[in-house]
């Protein structure tokens, strides 16, 4: 016969399968086990439960009638576990992101031209708006009553709208070494496939007369860069030169060599 299971073990719990088997088969152990863990008889429990339930329902109705149990409570009070908290932390940034993306998309589709378009204004004389170009690649100057718009780089295509606020003899758009000349105070120019169409007409370019041809000197700087220019004045420690961009003062220490082209 197996050894009896001690009451100490029964109380402490964590009984092994063997011990449980013994308790269920041994009359003595079974009796002691049931005595220790004996429950209040079910009929008695049911009587207490029913009586108290009736009393409590009346109490509940009374409290409800007095207005103690008819209020709403903050949402956070009914959170069951951390999952909802996590969802909240994720949902807010995601909603914000979706909102931002949607807003941008709508604006972009509805107002594409305005978003990509840039504008410049030159000395209250002309307003230019353009696509596929950046401000730093456009140089505007007025020379001999001509408005000259020069692109420092030649893009594959671009569009350029202009409104001249002064009277110009003509307008020149210079792309690379091609000069397009036309007349009028308002223009709508579109450039693609090396063709410039202004106000619906394709213009034939003329070649720009390079000013560099007229320079007599070539200055090689210490860093190796070359400036074509006309040397106007040579001081003790400096020289003044005229370049395509205008007059410029250079320190002699910056200069490696001066060449005379003629």
């Amino acid at each position: 016969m197996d050894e009896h299971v001690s009451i100490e073990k029964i109380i402490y719990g964590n009984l092994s399968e063997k011990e449980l088997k013994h308790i269920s088969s041994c009359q003595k152990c079974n009796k002691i086990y049931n005595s220790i863990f004996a429950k209040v008889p079910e009929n008695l429990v049911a009587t207490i439960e029913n009586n108290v339930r009736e009393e409590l329902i009346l109490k509940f109705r009374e409290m409800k009638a007095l207005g103690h149990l008819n209020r709403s409570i903050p949402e956070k009070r009914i959170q069951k576990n951390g999952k909802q908290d996590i969802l909240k932390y994720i949902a807010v940034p995601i909603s914000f992101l979706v909102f931002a993306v949607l807003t941008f998309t709508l604006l972009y589709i509805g107002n594409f031209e305005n978003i990509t378009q840039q504008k410049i204004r030159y000395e209250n004389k002309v307003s230019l708006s353009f696509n596929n170009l950046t401000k730093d690649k456009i140089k505007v100057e007025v020379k001999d009553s001509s408005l000259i718009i020069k692109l420092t780089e030649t893009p594959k295509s671009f569009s350029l709208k202009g409104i001249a606020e002064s009277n110009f003899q003509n307008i020149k758009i210079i792309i690379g070494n091609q000069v397009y000349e036309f007349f009028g105070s308002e223009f709508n120019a579109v450039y693609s496939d090396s063709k410039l169409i202004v106000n619906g007409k394709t213009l034939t370019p003329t070649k720009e007369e390079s000013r560099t041809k007229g320079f007599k000197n070539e200055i090689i700087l210490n860093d190796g860069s070359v400036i074509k220019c006309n040397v106007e004045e040579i001081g003790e420690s400096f020289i003044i030169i005229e370049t395509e961009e205008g007059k410029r003062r250079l320190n002699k220490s910056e200069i490696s060599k001066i060449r005379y082209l003629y």
Partner: protein
Amino acid sequence: MSEAVIRLTQIDDFIYHECMETEAELIYKILCGDESAFIELYNKYSKMLIGFIYRHTNDINETSDILQETFVRLLENIKEYNPKGSFKSYIFTIALNIIRDRKRKESFEKKMMPKIYEETISTEDENEDKLKELYNIIENLSEDDKNIILLRLEGYKIEEIAEILGISSRTVNRALKKIIDKLKSKGGFYG
């Protein structure tokens, strides 16, 4: 397998798989005046509480009164309930406070050996004295240790007792060992 063993397994299932999920929802509904939610909550916890309260009171009427007062206090303080905490621990704490108050006023007898257990053991039973000895030991324990052993005798596991009383499993273990050591010092049940 004895009935008692089967009953313990059922309690396990109830505690770990059913009651932890919906208390917050039920409390919310009760706050909004939903009577059926209150009855559902009552049905879930009344049996557990009756067993535990009875072990303290050894009196059916006192058990009824304390059970009723527990739920009335729950209703009165329901707005203070924090759904992130354990509801079981919350309601058992209410019941324990009421038991403590009543014991202080000595409104029920202090006899720890419940009548129903006395009935399960015949006078010829050789273990009667030992069981009585067990309850004598329980009677002389501190209040906290007493709660631990009475919950254990209700069939709760160490982890469940720790959760209900809001203490660590280590404390529960220590208290149970203390009682077992006392029992052993009295000769144990089977020597």
